[in-house]
């Protein structure tokens, strides 16, 4: 019997379950850098940062944009608790573009009532969404 090469992968957000599938591999943005998971991985847990989740399933690649969260890996199961997770094709590109411009404008204004940290995070989130959409082949005009 061939060794089991797949595992169960779930993405759960406060707005509901986003994804639940048997997958071959997952690449996720850990706080210490991107990491890959295959079936039979040692149990581990880490926090996530803003980035791209790349899932290989049935020979296809599915991309998600996430703004962070936590992930728990068990040998046959991986659970990703994301703050937000959007599948690449569902990313609202025009909204992300607008958010990017708004954040850039706020950062440039240098006025004292701008929360710089917040604006930077907003910018990072917007750029990440755009990048993931682009990786999935969405045109950004």
């Amino acid at each position, binding site marked *: 019997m061939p060794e089991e090469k797949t595992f169960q992968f779930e993405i*759960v957000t406060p*707005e509901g379950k986003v994804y639940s599938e048997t997958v071959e591999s997952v690449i996720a943005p850990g706080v*210490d850098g991107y990491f890959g998971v295959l079936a039979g991985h*040692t149990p*581990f*847990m*880490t926090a996530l940062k803003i980035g791209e989740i790349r899932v290989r399933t049935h020979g296809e690649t599915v991309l998600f944009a996430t703004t962070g969260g936590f992930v728990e890996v068990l040998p046959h199961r991986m659970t990703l608790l994301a703050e937000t997770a959007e599948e690449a094709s569902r990313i609202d590109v025009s909204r992300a573009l607008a958010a990017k411009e708004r954040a850039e404008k706020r950062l440039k204004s240098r006025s004292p009532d701008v929360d710089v940290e917040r604006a930077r995070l907003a910018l990072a989130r917007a750029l990440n969404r755009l990048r993931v959409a682009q990786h999935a082949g969405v045109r950004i005009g």
Partner: protein
Amino acid sequence: MATLRDIKRRIASVRSTQQITKAMKMVAAAKLRKAQERLYKARPYAYQIAQVLGHVAARVDRSAHPLLADREPNRVGYVIVTGDRGLCGSFNTNILRHAHEELDSVQAETVGLITVGRKAVQHFDKLDVQVLGRYMNFFNELEFSHAMAIASLIRDKFLDHELDHIYVIYNEFKSAVQQRIVVEQILPIVPELPEKEKHPSEYLFEPSPQAILDPLLDRYLNVRVWRILLESYAAEQGARMTAMEAATENAEEMIHNLILHYNKARQASITKEIIEIVSGAEALKS
């Protein structure tokens, strides 16, 4: 005695009230369905994050994080969650009554309240109690950011030692026709520890359990408040639906009685007229 016109007018008025309660019942049913759906979507996340927290907490000491610190409950805080609107039966009054029972029985030097929902805010502002935070008129467009605002206030009060223990009093959604008042401790956080045998002994944390604990506890708290708000909102809509259904039925019964009354009065007036005619004719004869 009420004249026929009066009774007719009353029937019309009860009927128009009935139309309103019927419409409100239907609106509540639609809102309930949406709220229920949202709640059911949020529950798996809340459940999973509690589980993950348990795994981490099993590896660290309880003194590892200030949000886990169990202090003497000298200053106690209560988050009281009601609805923004009335006309939902005893939903709001039950919560307020329960809150008063809690407040009367608590053994603490000081008590601070955080009122959530317009009914709670208005009720406690009239009384001589310390209110540390007020949140109202948001349930109609409930968003995660509302939960975050409340969570961040109670977190600050707890970390600044303004409050040692914080409880939440709210309605839990059991089913469309059933709510249950719950009093839960929300701070300090008490993680549910996992069952020993199910827990893998080899478990890596990156970068470390402590580093994960901080964002995880924050997140856990936000999600918990979020779930509580969703529970309460769904319960409120359920209570309103039931109350409006009962009101519609009562109106029906009232209309029925009024019609009976009307018919009796009509009959009486006809009888009276006939007697008058007959006795008039008798008088002419003689």
